[in-house]
């Protein structure tokens, strides 16, 4: 019996998915939809949704980059790579944080994130990747 219910359910879904747009529009028109007003509301909604999602995607991308950069930095500081150490020292001095981080290799990833979050992450990632390659 479950199989029969499943078949009916799937058939109804598949049938529904196959409805061509012009028929959907005709059915809605028959239900009294005013397309001028309808289209305007849809356009406004799509614009707002797209804007909101793009902003969210950018934020997520930035968070992923920050995560990656802090991981790379932690690794580079542990290895004692010159350029990343100099870069971090410079950032710490600029931000007057020297009392907090006397030993760079002891910085946690979260602390690194705090220091680099407002910097150009692409530039940092490129610098770290170059340094890692040079090291190898």
């Amino acid at each position, binding site marked *: 019996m479950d199989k029969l219910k499943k078949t009916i359910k799937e*058939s109804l879904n598949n049938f529904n998915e196959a409805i061509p747009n012009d028929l959907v529009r005709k059915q809605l028109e028959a239900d009294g939809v005013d397309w001028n007003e309808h289209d305007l509301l849809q356009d406004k909604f799509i614009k707002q949704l797209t804007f*909101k999602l793009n902003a969210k995607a950018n934020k997520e991308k930035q968070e992923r980059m920050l995560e990656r950069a802090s991981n790379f930095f932690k690794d580079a500081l542990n290895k004692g790579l010159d350029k990343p150490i100099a870069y971090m020292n410079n950032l710490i001095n600029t931000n007057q944080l020297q009392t907090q981080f006397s030993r760079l290799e002891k910085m946690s990833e979260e602390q690194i994130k705090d220091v680099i979050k407002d910097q150009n992450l692409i530039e940092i990632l490129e610098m770290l990747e170059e340094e890692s390659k040079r090291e190898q």
Partner: protein
Amino acid sequence: MRVATTSEIIEQLNAIDIKRLLNKMELYVRDRFYDKSDRNKRGFQFQDFCQQTLTKACDGTRKWKPDNCSFEQFIFWALQSDLDSFFKKFKRTELTLEKTPQSEYIINLPNYIEEKSIDDSSFEKIDEKVQLQEWIKQLKDQGADKDELEMFEFFAAGIDKPKEIAELLDKPIEVIYTISRRLRRKKIKLNEKWTSLKKQ
């Protein structure tokens, strides 16, 4: 199972015609409201239901797992679920406010019903035939016409392509959709509980 990222959702939205999706959603919402008055919408427009569901499905409130189903299937699942909650909430409020009993019907076939399966498939086939005839009788009692009954039998047999059904019923495809909307407004009884076809 993996949840889609916002970038993946944006890709999906770019790949589809969002207006077409919204229109299909609206048709579904209208069918769910066909036997209800404007008061049941509680100030919402049909489009509002579609937009709210699509927003929740895209902004991560609801989580789409791409390995599980297509984006469109996910959206319709979410819409069905949102409307179920809306009607349930409305029913509860009505009961509290008016203290009048509501008729007992509409449950969600795949989500709420659990049946014990029968291992012997021959029994199952006999059962299915009997059940199908029972459902057809129930549809007839609600005034379903010959076309609706035939369409229901096609669905039960797994025939679901609109073009194919149009040929079998020898009717234009536009008429086929009207028949399907009429059929969806009927109910079938499952496990002693009535289930509306419009939800499926």
